[in-house]
């Protein structure tokens, strides 16, 4: 298919719009001047300052800790929930259950954050890393369960039945057959939960206490006062990590796809 000039223009403008702001952000992180908008020569000094900024480093550490715990917990709970949704059959309150899975996806963060905060106060829980982990687990488990359940829905059920037929208990069938096959979906669910947790400002602001300031909270309070080259440097690092991660992941999946196609062709030839 040949691209018409209209398609070329709309694609070019579209991707320019998506990427130019980030490119500018990255460029100005290497600016000598304190003024983010006026170019005054190349320098990496803001990265140096960032590395020495303990408040940022602490916040980054808290954020990673929260993200690891909450995404892992969310993956376990979300996978269970997906399994219940797809394979659980009928049980009391199934509609409520699936409603509670889908509702957090469209819930404004301010409401989720507010309601969880009120719960933690009601329970008398001290706000800190634990409460943020609980909050993040709750909303990200719903994302995980959506990702995993869409994989489970297309999963050939006779594979599980074959495992049972060959002598597996239901638990063994899940561990030896279902889990290895849905693993890619579970991993992307984990990554999604991890990213959501890293990224979250609003819910963390509501549910955290002074002891656990996460990186987004720190960035937010800094940028409220205006742009600063240090934040540009931090953003650049985060963008770089994500870019490398996403590109690697897509290359790996592309390679395995190519290999599979080749294998299949070979299978046809050697038949």
């Amino acid at each position, binding site marked *: 298919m040949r691209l018409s000039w209209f398609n070329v223009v709309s694609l070019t403008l579209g991707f320019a719009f998506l990427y130019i702001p980030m490119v500018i952000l990255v460029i100005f992180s290497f600016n000598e001047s304190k003024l983010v908008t006026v170019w005054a020569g190349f320098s990496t000094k803001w990265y140096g300052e960032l590395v020495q900024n303990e408040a940022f480093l602490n916040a980054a550490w808290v954020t990673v800790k929260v993200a690891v715990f909450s995404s892992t917990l969310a993956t376990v709970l979300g996978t269970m929930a997906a399994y219940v949704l797809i394979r659980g059959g009928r049980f009391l309150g199934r509609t409520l259950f699936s409603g509670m899975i889908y509702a957090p996806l469209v819930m404004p963060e301010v409401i989720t954050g507010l309601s969880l905060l009120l719960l933690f106060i009601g329970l008398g829980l001290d706000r800190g890393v634990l409460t943020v982990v609980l909050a993040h687990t709750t909303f990200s488990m719903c994302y995980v369960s959506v990702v995993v359940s869409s994989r489970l829905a297309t999963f*050939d059920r*006779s*594979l599980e*039945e*074959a*495992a*049972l*037929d*060959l*002598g*597996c*208990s239901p638990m*063994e069938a899940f561990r*030896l*057959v279902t889990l*290895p*096959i849905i693993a890619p979906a579970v991993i992307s669910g984990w990554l999604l939960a991890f990213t959501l947790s890293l990224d979250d400002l609003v819910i963390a602001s509501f549910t955290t206490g002074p002891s656990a300031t996460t990186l987004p909270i720190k960035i937010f309070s800094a940028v409220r006062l205006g742009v600063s080259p240090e934040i540009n440097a931090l953003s650049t690092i985060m963008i770089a990590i994500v870019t490398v991660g996403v590109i690697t992941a897509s290359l790996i999946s592309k390679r395995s796809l190519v290999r*599979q196609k080749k*294998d*299949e062709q*070979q*299978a*046809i030839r*050697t*038949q």
Partner: protein
Amino acid sequence: MQTAEFAPWEDPQQKPLIRFQNVTKRFGEFTAIHDLSLDIFEREFFALLGPSGCGKTTMMRMLGGFETPTEGRIELAGQDIGPVPPNKRATNMMFQSYALFPHLSVWDNIAFGLRRDKKSKEQVAARVEEMLKLTRLEKFSRRKPHQISGGQRQRVALARSLAKAPKLLLLDEPLGALDKKLRQDTQFELMDIQETTGTTFVIVTHDQEEAMTVASRVAVMDEGRLMQVATPARIYETPESVYVADFIGDVNIVHGKATASGKEQYRIDWSDTLPPLTATSAKPFSDGQDCHLAIRPEKVAISTERPEAADNVVQGTVHDIAYLGNLSTYHVALPGGTIIKAQTANTRRISRRHITWEDPVWLSWTATAGVLLAE
């Protein structure tokens, strides 16, 4: 192949391996199986045949333990297996989709069931090798399922389900995914393997040719009921109902009224203008009873001259000819508009070419050629 003596269903002393006793299965409002009783014997190759939705797959899934009967009892070797979960049953199943584990190699797929039995490494390896040899898959043992062809996958699925030496092997449309040529070869392979291993096979299929080829007995099902259970030859030659006659192979059905005309012989009045037909039947019909005469096309002779001695003779014109290579089927229109099919083997090259469209022809068959059916 089945020896002439292998007919345990005719011996009242034989204990069946599987016994369905008044089994009913409902899914909500829908009744998949209606009060069905059936015995299957050891070493049988038993086929459940029927159109989709007739309940044959439900029967098989009840044997495998994936469904439980709503009413009635299923016995395996005299023991009620209703409450036994699939992983504790001495049955194995070969799935329609093969259900090969995509993350495991051919070798590991076959070893999967054996490992569940806590067998030693050596025992597992020996049995897997034996199965690979039986199914001629030695070369492919290290490959993953997506790296082998459809026919090879089918053999892996068979090897995997046979590895645990089950009392009963269930095969759900085992050849459905293969193309026609490969399917025919594999049918004979399946029969050989069944013979060698001495396992009882129950196969589910909608392909009547396949059922006729492989099975010692065939059960024809429709809407959750057994229509007839018999050997392939009996199903074909003496169907018990119009449904069975029509489902298996090609058939001419003539509807009329029976009148006794001799010992086990009846006159069938079927047309206002054409002469009555003659047919024999061991089953009695009362005078004036509604009946259907089922005649296979290959038992109807076609000729350009009126045949001398025949019990039934009708004249018509050739309406259509289907040339199938080895056979030709003539569709002959009778004066009333009825179409009768006649089939001849093309034993000589370009034979019978003198019969062509719109030709007037004579059809004839003997009194014993057809089966007289009440319904």
